[in-house]
């Protein structure tokens, strides 16, 4: 096939969007938009890397900090949430062997997450709104440096994403528990108990153990969704709170620090926010690893009862670890620092180590395996978390935090390696394994490009984390600028690593376009011709 024909029709013309079910289209829309937002994040990341080396003439300083504010939020909500929601809205009914409760609600989730992300990104782009410290929205709210109107639209965007997230959670729990038309009545309570781990917990004290009605990966999605729900409430509440400050400012009242205690608020915010980083991410990732290992090997999961129990423990742990973000806050009670900040946080080393071991042991049970694309990306994802979790445990220490807090160490070896290598490579593994199922047998255009994607992303991700980490150990702060080139050597090397990630992403994006064709990409966004609740077309 000629280049032009492949570009238009896809590899061997195998992908035909008119054969897709509404469910397949929905999932693919999420994935495409999630990848476009990932492209935003990579480009923004590269711009910031270059700016850190030498300020770029076309970016002003306030613009730099606006990019810095939008960058993690677009990555988390626009990219990761999109891909995760799309994948789980397909996988939960797929594993439960029933249709999704509401495709309409699924479409609304897609529209709200994609639209909300664009609104907050755009308002930051236009107004240079940048008060957030990563995701932390500090109080007292500062209106001397930032536009109130920019902030209002920023909050509206975030709130829209949160509404989309809430619809996703409802859809997931309803899908687990509802009775499809013509089916025997489903035991809603028993299904919910199994999904949330109550059955497993009660089994500890029963002679006759009850069977698990919900597959293990679905239990992971349900338990991660609990954290997602709590986080949604926290962020929505915070958004309203900041809006109150903004309305006060518009009306001429300065609420400043008198309205709400800054430390109490900080505890509340980090409690809620940690439900993402130390909650749903770890639970969703562990569940995805288990599912991928079972799909790759076609074997049951190693120690699956323990894996199921560990998911519940992880959920409870995620509610009690927030204090590791406040180890440098001297007014924070010492007991919270030691128990929540250090000890309970260290438990994540155990829970994540367990998931790591169980996944490897399951793969091991089926050797020799072929080094397929899902397997190699899964191993990359496992390596990412194996590198990033201990880095996080080290900074969650009263002694070490005194010299690591807010340095590039935190965002390098911990955050960027966890997200770029651990989480993103796990998501890529899921995309590669779902690709033929979601496209009714389309073929990847080039294996060579898949390999370039893999190596560039892996080396680039680890490299970026390592060089940022070295800069952090030498005193470089995060969210700061060093205009005299104090840390240029590390920033140049991190930029080179970032370039590798960009090359990897472009290879992947080009490969996907050439696999499904431009006609196919556009076809994903047109209404489905097949009217069915089935996930994939009936044979």
């Amino acid at each position, binding site marked *: 096939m000629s280049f032009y024909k492949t570009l238009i029709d896809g590899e061997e013309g195998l992908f035909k969007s008119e054969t897709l079910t509404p469910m397949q289209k929905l999932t693919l829309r999420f994935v495409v938009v999630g990848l476009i937002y990932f492209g935003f994040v990579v480009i923004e990341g590269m711009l910031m890397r270059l700016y850190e080396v030498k300020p770029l003439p076309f970016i002003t300083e306030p613009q730099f900090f606006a990019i810095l504010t939008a960058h993690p939020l677009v990555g988390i909500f626009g990219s990761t949430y999109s891909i995760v929601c799309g994948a789980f809205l397909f996988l939960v009914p797929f594993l439960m062997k029933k249709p999704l409760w509401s495709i309409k609600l699924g479409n609304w989730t897609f529209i709200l997450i994609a639209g909300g992300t664009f609104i907050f990104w755009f308002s930051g782009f236009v107004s240079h709104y940048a008060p957030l410290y990563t995701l932390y929205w500090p109080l007292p709210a500062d209106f001397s440096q930032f536009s109130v109107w920019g902030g209002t639209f920023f909050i509206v965007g975030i709130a829209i994403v949160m509404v989309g997230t809430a619809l996703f959670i409802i859809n997931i729990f309803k899908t687990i528990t509802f009775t499809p038309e013509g089916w025997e009545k489903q035991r809603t309570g028993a299904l919910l108990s199994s999904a949330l781990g109550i059955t497993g917990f009660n089994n500890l004290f029963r002679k006759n153990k009850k069977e698990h009605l919900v597959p293990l990966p679905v239990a992971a999605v349900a338990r991660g969704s609990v954290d997602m729900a709590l986080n949604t409430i926290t962020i929505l509440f915070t958004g309203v709170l900041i809006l109150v400050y903004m309305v006060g400012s518009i009306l001429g009242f300065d609420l400043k620090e008198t309205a709400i205690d800054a430390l109490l608020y900080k505890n509340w915010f980090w409690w809620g926010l940690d439900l993402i980083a130390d909650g749903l991410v770890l639970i969703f990732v562990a569940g995805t690893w288990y599912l991928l290992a079972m799909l790759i090997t076609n074997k049951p999961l190693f120690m699956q009862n323990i894996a199921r129990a560990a998911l519940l423990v992880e959920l409870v742990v995620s509610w009690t670890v927030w204090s590791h973000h406040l180890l440098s806050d001297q007014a924070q009670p010492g007991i919270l620092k030691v128990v929540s900040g250090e000890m309970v946080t260290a438990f994540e080393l155990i829970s994540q180590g367990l998931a790591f071991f169980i996944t490897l042991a399951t793969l091991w049970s089926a050797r020799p395996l072929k080094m397929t694309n899902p397997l190699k990306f899964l191993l990359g994802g496992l390596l990412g978390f194996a590198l990033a979790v201990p880095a996080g445990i080290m900074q969650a220490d009263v*002694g070490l935090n005194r010299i690591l807090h807010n340095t590039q160490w935190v965002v390098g070896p911990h955050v960027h390696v966890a997200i770029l290598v651990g989480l993103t490579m796990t998501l890529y593994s899921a995309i590669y394994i779902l690709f033929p199922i979601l496209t009714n047998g389309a073929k990847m255009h080039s294996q060579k490009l898949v390999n370039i994607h893999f190596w560039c992303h892996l080396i680039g991700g680890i490299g970026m984390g390592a060089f940022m980490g070295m800069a952090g150990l030498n*005193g470089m702060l995060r969210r700061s600028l060093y205009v005299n080139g104090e*840390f240029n050597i590390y920033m140049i090397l991190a930029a080179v690593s970032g370039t590798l990630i960009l090359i990897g992403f472009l290879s992947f994006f080009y490969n996907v376009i050439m696999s499904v064709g431009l006609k196919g990409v556009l076809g994903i966004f047109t209404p489905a011709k097949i009217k069915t609740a089935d996930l994939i077309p009936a044979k």
Partner: protein
Amino acid sequence: MVDSKMVLTGQTIAYTIYCIVIILVVAWFAWKVTHKGTDKGVKPVLFYSFVGFLTVLGVSLHIITYNTIPWAKVDLNRSDYNPDKTFNITVKNHQFILPSEKMVINVNDKVLFDVKSEDLTYGFGLFRQDNSMLFQMQVVPGHRNDVIWEFDRPGVYSIRSTEYSGPEGVFMIVKDAVEVVSENAAK
């Protein structure tokens, strides 16, 4: 007292060794899992040993640091220590207001820095001449933000806000604000 630079050197060595080992383990696994082997699967005893190892590691890390990093104990029990010197610092409108242009400290003095914010949340950190960090803490409005530090060698340090507080926060630097001198020099 062990300098914070030495603690970071130890951490760098330990984490680098760990990274090399875990990358090699995953690479070895990737090679082995794609080749035929003699054994059937992983024995549960290996799994339980691994869990035991992680538990010991997770708990012992903090016990070790508490007993080896000198400022950890001081930090958690600040009220039990009598500082040799106290500096009261105020932060307002993205500016540090210091008690004197240069804060002079004698070697081996335990010094209390008490920093108060009158508007936003800031950070307070001391940095060496080569830009590496000596220590830092958060400065939250409406609360007491204090840290005790023992200076065991002469040196000159700059103050820098270690918390993002908008673009203006980037310039919250007071060059060479702290000087640690040996007692003889002070006389």
